[in-house]
Protein backbone atom coordinates (compact mmCIF):
# COMPACT_ATOMS: atom_id res chain seq x y z
CA UNK A 1 0.00 0.00 0.00
CA UNK A 2 1.46 3.26 -1.16
CA UNK A 3 -0.61 5.35 1.19
CA UNK A 4 -0.04 3.37 4.35
CA UNK A 5 3.00 5.38 5.37
CA UNK A 6 2.81 8.90 6.75
CA UNK A 7 4.41 10.39 3.67
CA UNK A 8 1.80 8.90 1.38
CA UNK A 9 -1.01 10.06 3.59
CA UNK A 10 0.31 13.57 3.61
CA UNK A 11 0.60 13.48 -0.18
CA UNK A 12 -2.96 12.30 -0.50
CA UNK A 13 -4.19 15.05 1.80
CA UNK A 14 -2.29 17.61 -0.23
CA UNK A 15 -3.84 16.36 -3.47
CA UNK A 16 -7.32 16.56 -1.97
CA UNK A 17 -6.62 20.06 -0.74
CA UNK A 18 -5.32 21.27 -4.07
CA UNK A 19 -8.21 19.78 -6.03
CA UNK A 20 -10.59 21.66 -3.74
CA UNK A 21 -8.58 24.88 -4.07
CA UNK A 22 -8.55 24.43 -7.83
CA UNK A 23 -12.32 24.04 -8.08
CA UNK A 24 -12.87 27.12 -5.94
CA UNK A 25 -10.43 29.09 -8.03
CA UNK A 26 -12.33 28.00 -11.13
CA UNK A 27 -15.63 29.25 -9.66
CA UNK A 28 -14.07 32.59 -8.74
CA UNK A 29 -12.44 32.91 -12.15
CA UNK A 30 -15.74 32.26 -13.91
CA UNK A 31 -17.53 34.82 -11.74
CA UNK A 32 -14.96 37.51 -12.38
CA UNK A 33 -14.58 36.47 -15.97
CA UNK A 34 -18.25 37.00 -16.74
CA UNK A 35 -18.58 40.23 -14.76
CA UNK A 36 -15.30 41.61 -16.08
CA UNK A 37 -16.03 40.70 -19.67
CA UNK A 38 -19.46 42.32 -19.72
CA UNK A 39 -18.30 45.42 -17.83
CA UNK A 40 -15.14 45.95 -19.90
CA UNK A 41 -16.99 45.66 -23.18
CA UNK A 42 -20.11 47.47 -22.09
CA UNK A 43 -19.06 50.48 -20.07
CA UNK A 44 -17.21 52.23 -22.95
CA UNK A 45 -20.36 51.83 -25.05
CA UNK A 46 -22.69 53.59 -22.64
CA UNK A 47 -23.66 56.48 -24.90
CA UNK A 48 -26.28 59.19 -24.34
CA UNK A 49 -28.25 57.96 -27.37
CA UNK A 50 -28.82 54.70 -25.54
CA UNK A 51 -30.83 56.62 -22.96
CA UNK A 52 -32.99 58.54 -25.43
CA UNK A 53 -36.68 58.67 -24.52
CA UNK A 54 -37.84 57.14 -27.78
CA UNK A 55 -36.71 53.78 -29.10
CA UNK A 56 -35.83 53.65 -32.77
CA UNK A 57 -34.10 50.92 -34.74
CA UNK A 58 -31.13 53.28 -35.09
CA UNK A 59 -30.50 54.32 -31.50
CA UNK A 60 -31.85 51.06 -29.95
CA UNK A 61 -32.50 53.10 -26.81
CA UNK A 62 -32.95 51.10 -23.64
CA UNK A 63 -34.89 53.84 -21.86
CA UNK A 64 -38.45 52.66 -22.69
CA UNK A 65 -37.48 49.12 -21.69
CA UNK A 66 -35.94 50.43 -18.48
CA UNK A 67 -39.10 52.32 -17.52
CA UNK A 68 -41.23 49.31 -18.43
CA UNK A 69 -39.07 47.14 -16.20
CA UNK A 70 -39.74 49.44 -13.25
CA UNK A 71 -43.46 49.53 -14.02
CA UNK A 72 -43.89 45.79 -14.43
CA UNK A 73 -41.75 44.93 -11.40
CA UNK A 74 -43.57 47.46 -9.22
CA UNK A 75 -46.93 46.09 -10.29
CA UNK A 76 -45.83 42.48 -9.78
CA UNK A 77 -44.54 43.23 -6.29
CA UNK A 78 -47.69 45.18 -5.39
CA UNK A 79 -49.57 41.96 -6.02
CA UNK A 80 -47.09 39.45 -4.65
CA UNK A 81 -45.76 41.19 -1.52
CA UNK A 82 -49.04 41.41 0.46
CA UNK A 83 -49.97 37.86 -0.54
CA UNK A 84 -46.54 36.45 0.26
CA UNK A 85 -46.21 38.22 3.60
CA UNK A 86 -49.79 37.32 4.55
CA UNK A 87 -49.17 33.68 3.72
CA UNK A 88 -45.94 33.63 5.73
CA UNK A 89 -47.72 35.25 8.71
CA UNK A 90 -50.37 32.57 8.49
CA UNK A 91 -47.81 29.76 8.36
CA UNK A 92 -45.67 31.06 11.22
CA UNK A 93 -48.04 32.93 13.52
CA UNK A 94 -51.49 31.43 13.02
CA UNK A 95 -51.36 27.84 11.86
CA UNK A 96 -51.12 25.06 14.40
CA UNK A 97 -48.31 22.61 14.02
CA UNK A 98 -49.11 19.55 11.94
CA UNK A 99 -52.10 21.25 10.32
CA UNK A 100 -53.05 19.53 7.07
CA UNK A 101 -53.76 22.82 5.29
CA UNK A 102 -50.29 24.07 6.19
CA UNK A 103 -48.71 20.97 4.71
CA UNK A 104 -50.57 21.51 1.44
CA UNK A 105 -49.59 25.19 1.37
CA UNK A 106 -45.95 24.30 1.90
CA UNK A 107 -46.05 21.64 -0.79
CA UNK A 108 -47.67 24.13 -3.17
CA UNK A 109 -45.07 26.81 -2.45
CA UNK A 110 -42.31 24.28 -2.95
CA UNK A 111 -43.82 23.19 -6.26
CA UNK A 112 -44.12 26.80 -7.40
CA UNK A 113 -40.49 27.37 -6.53
CA UNK A 114 -39.36 24.51 -8.74
CA UNK A 115 -41.42 25.46 -11.80
CA UNK A 116 -39.20 26.90 -14.55
CA UNK A 117 -40.00 30.38 -15.79
CA UNK A 118 -40.97 29.18 -19.26
CA UNK A 119 -43.84 27.23 -17.69
CA UNK A 120 -44.98 30.40 -15.92
CA UNK A 121 -44.80 32.14 -19.27
CA UNK A 122 -46.89 29.41 -20.87
CA UNK A 123 -49.42 29.58 -18.06
CA UNK A 124 -49.56 33.37 -18.26
CA UNK A 125 -50.19 33.10 -21.99
CA UNK A 126 -52.99 30.56 -21.52
CA UNK A 127 -54.62 32.17 -18.49
CA UNK A 128 -54.06 35.93 -18.37
CA UNK A 129 -53.45 36.62 -22.04
CA UNK A 130 -55.96 34.23 -23.60
CA UNK A 131 -58.56 33.08 -21.05
CA UNK A 132 -58.94 36.46 -19.32
CA UNK A 133 -58.47 38.28 -22.62
CA UNK A 134 -55.80 40.70 -21.40
CA UNK A 135 -53.74 40.17 -24.56
CA UNK A 136 -49.95 40.67 -24.44
CA UNK A 137 -49.78 43.38 -21.82
CA UNK A 138 -48.08 45.00 -18.88
CA UNK A 139 -50.85 43.59 -16.69
CA UNK A 140 -50.52 39.99 -17.89
CA UNK A 141 -46.73 40.14 -17.51
CA UNK A 142 -46.96 41.60 -14.01
CA UNK A 143 -49.44 38.96 -12.82
CA UNK A 144 -47.28 36.18 -14.26
CA UNK A 145 -44.22 37.57 -12.48
CA UNK A 146 -46.25 37.97 -9.28
CA UNK A 147 -47.01 34.24 -9.17
CA UNK A 148 -43.39 33.46 -10.00
CA UNK A 149 -41.93 35.49 -7.11
CA UNK A 150 -44.66 34.64 -4.61
CA UNK A 151 -42.79 31.61 -3.19
CA UNK A 152 -39.59 33.67 -2.91
CA UNK A 153 -41.33 36.29 -0.77
CA UNK A 154 -43.16 33.63 1.24
CA UNK A 155 -39.98 31.75 2.06
CA UNK A 156 -37.83 34.76 2.98
CA UNK A 157 -40.62 36.28 5.09
CA UNK A 158 -41.16 32.96 6.83
CA UNK A 159 -37.45 32.76 7.68
CA UNK A 160 -37.50 36.35 8.94
CA UNK A 161 -40.55 35.68 11.13
CA UNK A 162 -39.08 32.48 12.51
CA UNK A 163 -35.95 34.39 13.49
CA UNK A 164 -37.96 36.66 15.79
CA UNK A 165 -37.46 35.34 19.33
CA UNK A 166 -40.54 33.82 20.93
CA UNK A 167 -40.00 35.96 24.01
CA UNK A 168 -41.22 38.95 22.02
CA UNK A 169 -44.53 37.26 21.31
CA UNK A 170 -44.89 36.03 24.87
CA UNK A 171 -44.18 39.48 26.24
CA UNK A 172 -46.79 40.96 23.94
CA UNK A 173 -49.39 38.36 24.87
CA UNK A 174 -48.49 38.88 28.51
CA UNK A 175 -49.30 42.56 28.20
CA UNK A 176 -52.75 41.58 27.01
CA UNK A 177 -52.32 42.14 23.26
CA UNK A 178 -54.24 39.91 20.89
CA UNK A 179 -52.62 37.86 18.14
CA UNK A 180 -53.25 40.47 15.46
CA UNK A 181 -51.71 43.28 17.50
CA UNK A 182 -48.77 41.06 18.45
CA UNK A 183 -48.10 40.37 14.78
CA UNK A 184 -48.30 43.97 13.63
CA UNK A 185 -46.75 45.75 16.59
CA UNK A 186 -44.16 43.23 17.72
CA UNK A 187 -43.24 40.56 15.22
CA UNK A 188 -43.41 42.37 11.88
CA UNK A 189 -41.34 45.43 12.89
CA UNK A 190 -38.60 43.14 14.15
CA UNK A 191 -38.66 41.05 10.99
CA UNK A 192 -38.72 44.00 8.56
CA UNK A 193 -35.07 43.83 7.42
CA UNK A 194 -35.40 40.17 6.47
CA UNK A 195 -38.67 40.82 4.68
CA UNK A 196 -37.23 43.77 2.77
CA UNK A 197 -34.29 41.58 1.79
CA UNK A 198 -36.70 39.02 0.36
CA UNK A 199 -38.67 41.66 -1.52
CA UNK A 200 -35.50 43.02 -3.10
CA UNK A 201 -34.50 39.49 -4.05
CA UNK A 202 -37.89 39.08 -5.73
CA UNK A 203 -37.40 42.42 -7.47
CA UNK A 204 -34.10 41.16 -8.86
CA UNK A 205 -35.87 38.06 -10.16
CA UNK A 206 -38.47 40.24 -11.91
CA UNK A 207 -35.83 42.48 -13.46
CA UNK A 208 -33.85 39.60 -14.95
CA UNK A 209 -36.77 37.56 -16.26
CA UNK A 210 -37.34 36.93 -19.97
CA UNK A 211 -38.89 33.51 -20.53
CA UNK A 212 -41.96 34.31 -18.43
CA UNK A 213 -42.49 37.66 -20.10
CA UNK A 214 -41.88 37.05 -23.79
CA UNK A 215 -45.39 35.67 -24.37
CA UNK A 216 -47.21 37.51 -21.60
CA UNK A 217 -45.91 41.08 -21.76
CA UNK A 218 -44.74 40.98 -25.36
CA UNK A 219 -41.75 42.83 -26.77
CA UNK A 220 -42.95 46.22 -27.93
CA UNK A 221 -40.31 48.80 -27.01
CA UNK A 222 -42.67 51.56 -25.95
CA UNK A 223 -43.79 52.87 -22.62
CA UNK A 224 -47.57 52.59 -22.23
CA UNK A 225 -49.08 56.06 -22.47
CA UNK A 226 -50.90 56.46 -19.18
CA UNK A 227 -51.67 60.13 -19.80
CA UNK A 228 -53.63 59.49 -22.94
CA UNK A 229 -55.05 56.07 -22.33
CA UNK A 230 -55.48 56.04 -18.58
CA UNK A 231 -56.23 52.62 -17.19
CA UNK A 232 -56.22 51.01 -20.64
CA UNK A 233 -52.46 51.60 -20.77
CA UNK A 234 -52.06 48.68 -18.38
CA UNK A 235 -53.16 46.47 -21.24
CA UNK A 236 -50.52 47.68 -23.68
CA UNK A 237 -47.73 45.28 -24.64
CA UNK A 238 -44.35 46.16 -23.14
CA UNK A 239 -40.72 45.14 -23.40
CA UNK A 240 -38.59 44.99 -20.27
CA UNK A 241 -34.85 45.53 -20.11
CA UNK A 242 -34.02 41.82 -20.00
CA UNK A 243 -36.31 41.12 -22.97
CA UNK A 244 -34.70 44.06 -24.73
CA UNK A 245 -31.28 42.50 -24.19
CA UNK A 246 -32.53 39.18 -25.53
CA UNK A 247 -34.01 40.80 -28.64
CA UNK A 248 -30.83 42.80 -29.30
CA UNK A 249 -28.57 39.79 -28.73
CA UNK A 250 -30.56 37.53 -31.02
CA UNK A 251 -30.78 40.18 -33.74
CA UNK A 252 -26.99 40.50 -33.53
CA UNK A 253 -26.97 43.85 -35.33
CA UNK A 254 -25.89 46.20 -32.55
CA UNK A 255 -23.17 44.39 -30.64
CA UNK A 256 -21.82 47.46 -28.83
CA UNK A 257 -25.25 48.61 -27.75
CA UNK A 258 -26.03 45.07 -26.62
CA UNK A 259 -22.99 45.08 -24.36
CA UNK A 260 -24.02 48.43 -22.93
CA UNK A 261 -27.55 47.14 -22.29
CA UNK A 262 -26.11 44.07 -20.58
CA UNK A 263 -24.05 46.34 -18.33
CA UNK A 264 -27.08 48.38 -17.30
CA UNK A 265 -29.04 45.21 -16.55
CA UNK A 266 -26.13 43.67 -14.69
CA UNK A 267 -25.50 46.76 -12.56
CA UNK A 268 -29.19 46.97 -11.73
CA UNK A 269 -29.31 43.33 -10.64
CA UNK A 270 -26.04 43.51 -8.70
CA UNK A 271 -27.25 46.60 -6.84
CA UNK A 272 -30.47 44.83 -5.93
CA UNK A 273 -28.58 41.75 -4.76
CA UNK A 274 -26.25 43.78 -2.59
CA UNK A 275 -29.28 45.57 -1.17
CA UNK A 276 -30.99 42.27 -0.37
CA UNK A 277 -27.83 41.02 1.34
CA UNK A 278 -27.49 44.21 3.33
CA UNK A 279 -31.02 44.03 4.68
CA UNK A 280 -30.92 40.30 5.29
CA UNK A 281 -27.71 40.63 7.28
CA UNK A 282 -29.18 43.37 9.45
CA UNK A 283 -31.37 40.81 11.12
CA UNK A 284 -28.81 38.05 11.00
CA UNK A 285 -31.16 35.90 8.93
CA UNK A 286 -29.32 33.47 6.74
CA UNK A 287 -30.51 33.43 3.18
CA UNK A 288 -30.22 30.49 0.83
CA UNK A 289 -30.91 30.43 -2.84
CA UNK A 290 -32.77 27.26 -3.66
Amino acid at each position, binding site marked *: MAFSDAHGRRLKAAIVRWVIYGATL*LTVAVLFGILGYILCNGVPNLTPELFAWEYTTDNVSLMPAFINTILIAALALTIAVPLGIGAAIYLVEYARRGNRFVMVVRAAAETLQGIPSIIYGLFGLLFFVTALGWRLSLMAGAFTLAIMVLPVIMRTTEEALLAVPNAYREASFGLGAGRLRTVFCCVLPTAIPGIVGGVILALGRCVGEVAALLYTAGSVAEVPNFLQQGFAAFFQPTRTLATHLYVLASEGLHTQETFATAVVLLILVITLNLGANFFAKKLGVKREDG
Partner: protein
Amino acid sequence: MSAKFKEKLASALFGFTAAVSILAVALICLFLFLNGVPALADIGLPEFLFGSTWQPSSGIYGIFPMIVGSIYVTAGAMIVGVPTGLLTALYLSRFANAKIAQFLKPGVELLAGIPSVVYGFFGLMIIVPFIRTSMPGNGFSLLAASLLLGVMILPTVITVAQSALDAVPRSYYEGALALGADHERSVLQVVVPAAVSGLMASVILGVGRAIGETMAVVMVAGNQVQIPTSIFEGVRTMTANIVLEMGYAADLHRGALIATGVVLFVFILLITLLLNLIKRRSEI
Protein backbone atom coordinates in the same frame (compact mmCIF):
# COMPACT_ATOMS: atom_id res chain seq x y z
CA MET B 1 -65.94 45.97 15.54
CA SER B 2 -65.29 43.68 18.47
CA ALA B 3 -61.77 42.52 19.07
CA LYS B 4 -62.78 38.92 18.69
CA PHE B 5 -64.34 39.52 15.29
CA LYS B 6 -61.24 41.41 14.19
CA GLU B 7 -59.05 38.49 15.18
CA LYS B 8 -61.27 36.06 13.32
CA LEU B 9 -61.26 38.26 10.23
CA ALA B 10 -57.47 38.60 10.28
CA SER B 11 -57.03 34.87 10.68
CA ALA B 12 -59.32 34.20 7.73
CA LEU B 13 -57.56 36.82 5.62
CA PHE B 14 -54.10 35.40 6.31
CA GLY B 15 -55.47 31.93 5.66
CA PHE B 16 -56.74 33.12 2.30
CA THR B 17 -53.36 34.57 1.30
CA ALA B 18 -51.79 31.23 2.22
CA ALA B 19 -54.32 29.47 0.01
CA VAL B 20 -53.28 31.59 -2.99
CA SER B 21 -50.24 29.43 -3.70
CA ILE B 22 -52.44 26.32 -3.71
CA LEU B 23 -54.78 28.11 -6.09
CA ALA B 24 -51.84 29.09 -8.30
CA VAL B 25 -50.54 25.52 -8.54
CA ALA B 26 -54.05 24.25 -9.26
CA LEU B 27 -54.59 26.85 -11.99
CA ILE B 28 -51.22 26.15 -13.59
CA CYS B 29 -51.90 22.40 -13.69
CA LEU B 30 -55.46 22.93 -14.91
CA PHE B 31 -54.61 25.30 -17.74
CA LEU B 32 -51.55 23.39 -18.92
CA PHE B 33 -53.38 20.07 -18.97
CA LEU B 34 -56.62 21.52 -20.34
CA ASN B 35 -54.76 23.03 -23.28
CA GLY B 36 -52.15 20.34 -23.75
CA VAL B 37 -54.05 17.10 -23.33
CA PRO B 38 -56.43 17.55 -26.31
CA ALA B 39 -53.43 18.03 -28.57
CA LEU B 40 -51.80 14.98 -27.00
CA ALA B 41 -54.92 12.95 -27.70
CA ASP B 42 -55.00 14.26 -31.26
CA ILE B 43 -51.38 13.43 -31.99
CA GLY B 44 -51.30 10.25 -29.93
CA LEU B 45 -49.13 9.95 -26.83
CA PRO B 46 -46.59 7.43 -28.18
CA GLU B 47 -46.21 9.33 -31.46
CA PHE B 48 -45.72 12.55 -29.54
CA LEU B 49 -43.24 11.26 -26.98
CA PHE B 50 -41.28 8.88 -29.19
CA GLY B 51 -41.71 10.39 -32.64
CA SER B 52 -38.38 11.69 -33.88
CA THR B 53 -39.78 14.03 -36.52
CA TRP B 54 -40.97 17.53 -35.68
CA GLN B 55 -42.48 19.12 -38.79
CA PRO B 56 -45.31 21.45 -37.85
CA SER B 57 -45.77 22.41 -41.50
CA SER B 58 -46.74 18.85 -42.38
CA GLY B 59 -48.51 18.16 -39.10
CA ILE B 60 -45.91 15.78 -37.64
CA TYR B 61 -45.22 16.39 -33.99
CA GLY B 62 -42.65 14.15 -32.32
CA ILE B 63 -40.68 15.63 -29.43
CA PHE B 64 -38.30 12.74 -28.81
CA PRO B 65 -35.28 14.75 -30.05
CA MET B 66 -36.22 17.55 -27.66
CA ILE B 67 -36.60 15.20 -24.69
CA VAL B 68 -33.22 13.68 -25.49
CA GLY B 69 -31.85 17.18 -26.01
CA SER B 70 -33.01 18.32 -22.59
CA ILE B 71 -31.54 15.22 -20.96
CA TYR B 72 -28.21 15.57 -22.81
CA VAL B 73 -27.86 19.25 -21.99
CA THR B 74 -28.76 18.66 -18.34
CA ALA B 75 -26.32 15.76 -18.08
CA GLY B 76 -23.61 17.89 -19.65
CA ALA B 77 -24.32 20.69 -17.20
CA MET B 78 -24.05 18.21 -14.34
CA ILE B 79 -20.69 16.95 -15.56
CA VAL B 80 -19.40 20.52 -15.71
CA GLY B 81 -21.12 22.03 -12.71
CA VAL B 82 -21.52 19.36 -10.04
CA PRO B 83 -17.87 18.51 -9.27
CA THR B 84 -16.85 22.16 -9.31
CA GLY B 85 -19.84 23.16 -7.24
CA LEU B 86 -19.48 20.45 -4.61
CA LEU B 87 -15.74 21.03 -4.24
CA THR B 88 -16.28 24.78 -3.91
CA ALA B 89 -18.91 24.11 -1.25
CA LEU B 90 -16.40 21.88 0.57
CA TYR B 91 -13.85 24.67 0.41
CA LEU B 92 -16.28 27.30 1.72
CA SER B 93 -17.53 25.03 4.47
CA ARG B 94 -14.34 23.36 5.71
CA PHE B 95 -11.20 24.84 4.14
CA ALA B 96 -11.64 28.60 3.76
CA ASN B 97 -10.62 30.98 6.48
CA ALA B 98 -13.33 33.33 7.67
CA LYS B 99 -12.10 36.33 5.72
CA ILE B 100 -12.06 34.59 2.34
CA ALA B 101 -15.43 32.97 2.96
CA GLN B 102 -16.88 36.33 3.88
CA PHE B 103 -15.84 37.62 0.50
CA LEU B 104 -16.72 34.53 -1.53
CA LYS B 105 -20.23 33.92 -0.25
CA PRO B 106 -21.70 37.17 -1.58
CA GLY B 107 -19.78 36.45 -4.78
CA VAL B 108 -21.58 33.13 -5.20
CA GLU B 109 -24.90 34.82 -4.43
CA LEU B 110 -24.07 37.38 -7.07
CA LEU B 111 -23.51 34.59 -9.56
CA ALA B 112 -27.01 33.38 -8.70
CA GLY B 113 -28.46 36.81 -9.31
CA ILE B 114 -27.07 37.31 -12.82
CA PRO B 115 -30.04 37.06 -15.23
CA SER B 116 -30.00 34.14 -17.63
CA VAL B 117 -30.04 36.45 -20.68
CA VAL B 118 -26.75 37.92 -19.51
CA TYR B 119 -25.33 34.40 -19.22
CA GLY B 120 -26.73 33.65 -22.64
CA PHE B 121 -25.17 36.75 -24.13
CA PHE B 122 -21.84 35.87 -22.54
CA GLY B 123 -22.10 32.37 -24.01
CA LEU B 124 -22.95 33.82 -27.41
CA MET B 125 -19.95 36.15 -27.40
CA ILE B 126 -17.32 33.95 -25.74
CA ILE B 127 -18.16 30.25 -25.55
CA VAL B 128 -19.70 29.84 -29.01
CA PRO B 129 -16.90 31.66 -30.91
CA PHE B 130 -14.30 29.76 -28.90
CA ILE B 131 -15.80 26.40 -29.84
CA ARG B 132 -16.22 27.53 -33.45
CA THR B 133 -12.55 28.42 -33.86
CA SER B 134 -10.97 25.57 -31.94
CA MET B 135 -13.31 22.64 -32.50
CA PRO B 136 -15.50 21.18 -35.24
CA GLY B 137 -18.91 22.62 -35.99
CA ASN B 138 -20.18 26.20 -35.93
CA GLY B 139 -19.98 26.57 -32.16
CA PHE B 140 -23.70 26.48 -31.42
CA SER B 141 -23.67 23.09 -29.79
CA LEU B 142 -24.47 20.70 -27.00
CA LEU B 143 -21.03 21.49 -25.61
CA ALA B 144 -21.69 25.25 -25.49
CA ALA B 145 -25.04 24.75 -23.77
CA SER B 146 -23.54 22.29 -21.27
CA LEU B 147 -20.66 24.59 -20.36
CA LEU B 148 -22.94 27.58 -19.92
CA LEU B 149 -25.54 25.68 -17.90
CA GLY B 150 -22.78 24.10 -15.83
CA VAL B 151 -21.76 27.60 -14.76
CA MET B 152 -25.36 28.64 -14.19
CA ILE B 153 -26.12 25.81 -11.77
CA LEU B 154 -22.96 26.49 -9.73
CA PRO B 155 -24.59 28.90 -7.25
CA THR B 156 -27.51 26.54 -6.60
CA VAL B 157 -25.24 23.57 -6.01
CA ILE B 158 -22.77 25.57 -3.90
CA THR B 159 -25.26 27.26 -1.55
CA VAL B 160 -27.36 24.15 -0.88
CA ALA B 161 -24.35 21.85 -0.54
CA GLN B 162 -22.60 24.30 1.75
CA SER B 163 -25.52 24.57 4.13
CA ALA B 164 -25.72 20.77 4.21
CA LEU B 165 -22.00 20.54 5.07
CA ASP B 166 -22.28 23.32 7.65
CA ALA B 167 -25.10 21.46 9.34
CA VAL B 168 -22.96 18.41 10.16
CA PRO B 169 -22.34 18.44 13.94
CA ARG B 170 -18.87 19.52 14.97
CA SER B 171 -18.47 16.43 17.11
CA TYR B 172 -18.38 14.19 14.00
CA TYR B 173 -15.37 16.01 12.66
CA GLU B 174 -13.69 16.17 16.05
CA GLY B 175 -14.31 12.49 16.60
CA ALA B 176 -12.54 11.69 13.35
CA LEU B 177 -9.61 13.90 14.32
CA ALA B 178 -9.42 12.14 17.69
CA LEU B 179 -9.15 8.81 15.90
CA GLY B 180 -6.03 10.11 14.21
CA ALA B 181 -7.37 11.11 10.81
CA ASP B 182 -6.02 14.32 9.32
CA HIS B 183 -8.23 17.24 8.34
CA GLU B 184 -8.76 16.16 4.73
CA ARG B 185 -9.59 12.60 5.66
CA SER B 186 -11.99 13.65 8.43
CA VAL B 187 -13.84 15.88 6.01
CA LEU B 188 -14.00 13.41 3.13
CA GLN B 189 -14.75 10.25 5.10
CA VAL B 190 -16.86 11.56 7.97
CA VAL B 191 -18.36 14.98 7.22
CA VAL B 192 -19.23 14.32 3.56
CA PRO B 193 -21.02 11.00 4.19
CA ALA B 194 -22.97 12.65 7.02
CA ALA B 195 -24.12 15.39 4.67
CA VAL B 196 -24.82 13.13 1.73
CA SER B 197 -28.57 13.64 1.52
CA GLY B 198 -28.11 17.41 1.50
CA LEU B 199 -25.47 17.08 -1.18
CA MET B 200 -27.85 14.95 -3.23
CA ALA B 201 -30.52 17.60 -2.79
CA SER B 202 -28.12 20.22 -4.13
CA VAL B 203 -27.46 18.14 -7.23
CA ILE B 204 -31.15 17.51 -7.84
CA LEU B 205 -31.93 21.20 -7.46
CA GLY B 206 -29.21 21.80 -10.02
CA VAL B 207 -30.88 19.30 -12.37
CA GLY B 208 -34.18 21.15 -11.96
CA ARG B 209 -32.51 24.46 -12.72
CA ALA B 210 -30.72 23.08 -15.77
CA ILE B 211 -33.67 21.28 -17.34
CA GLY B 212 -35.92 24.33 -16.94
CA GLU B 213 -33.46 26.91 -18.19
CA THR B 214 -34.64 28.54 -21.38
CA MET B 215 -33.16 31.78 -22.62
CA ALA B 216 -29.47 30.99 -22.10
CA VAL B 217 -29.88 27.61 -23.82
CA VAL B 218 -31.78 29.05 -26.76
CA MET B 219 -28.99 31.52 -27.37
CA VAL B 220 -26.13 29.00 -27.58
CA ALA B 221 -27.49 25.52 -28.38
CA GLY B 222 -28.17 25.91 -32.09
CA ASN B 223 -31.71 24.56 -31.71
CA GLN B 224 -31.73 22.06 -34.58
CA VAL B 225 -34.31 19.32 -34.15
CA GLN B 226 -31.99 16.34 -34.09
CA ILE B 227 -30.53 13.79 -31.75
CA PRO B 228 -26.90 14.94 -31.67
CA THR B 229 -24.26 12.35 -32.40
CA SER B 230 -21.42 14.45 -31.03
CA ILE B 231 -21.08 17.22 -28.48
CA PHE B 232 -20.21 19.66 -31.27
CA GLU B 233 -23.61 19.34 -32.90
CA GLY B 234 -26.58 21.57 -32.24
CA VAL B 235 -29.40 20.46 -29.99
CA ARG B 236 -32.90 21.66 -29.14
CA THR B 237 -34.34 21.34 -25.65
CA MET B 238 -38.01 21.20 -24.69
CA THR B 239 -37.81 24.72 -23.26
CA ALA B 240 -36.23 26.01 -26.47
CA ASN B 241 -38.93 24.33 -28.53
CA ILE B 242 -41.62 26.25 -26.65
CA VAL B 243 -39.94 29.62 -26.72
CA LEU B 244 -38.87 29.46 -30.36
CA GLU B 245 -42.21 28.57 -31.90
CA MET B 246 -44.87 29.81 -29.48
CA GLY B 247 -44.78 33.25 -31.09
CA TYR B 248 -46.38 32.16 -34.34
CA ALA B 249 -47.91 28.76 -33.60
CA ALA B 250 -51.63 28.14 -34.07
CA ASP B 251 -54.11 25.31 -33.61
CA LEU B 252 -52.56 21.86 -33.25
CA HIS B 253 -49.03 23.27 -33.47
CA ARG B 254 -49.80 25.50 -30.49
CA GLY B 255 -51.35 22.56 -28.68
CA ALA B 256 -48.25 20.49 -29.35
CA LEU B 257 -46.06 23.23 -27.84
CA ILE B 258 -48.25 23.41 -24.76
CA ALA B 259 -48.04 19.62 -24.55
CA THR B 260 -44.25 20.01 -24.66
CA GLY B 261 -44.70 22.25 -21.64
CA VAL B 262 -46.79 19.55 -19.98
CA VAL B 263 -44.01 16.98 -20.49
CA LEU B 264 -41.48 19.43 -19.06
CA PHE B 265 -43.82 20.11 -16.14
CA VAL B 266 -44.09 16.40 -15.42
CA PHE B 267 -40.29 16.15 -15.43
CA ILE B 268 -40.11 19.02 -12.93
CA LEU B 269 -42.81 17.48 -10.72
CA LEU B 270 -40.85 14.21 -10.63
CA ILE B 271 -37.73 16.13 -9.63
CA THR B 272 -39.62 17.96 -6.86
CA LEU B 273 -40.99 14.62 -5.66
CA LEU B 274 -37.52 13.08 -5.61
CA LEU B 275 -36.23 16.06 -3.66
CA ASN B 276 -38.97 15.60 -1.07
CA LEU B 277 -38.18 11.91 -0.72
CA ILE B 278 -34.54 12.74 -0.02
CA LYS B 279 -35.47 15.46 2.45
CA ARG B 280 -37.81 13.11 4.29
CA ARG B 281 -35.18 10.40 4.40
CA SER B 282 -32.66 12.81 5.89
CA GLU B 283 -35.13 13.83 8.61
CA ILE B 284 -35.68 10.31 9.87
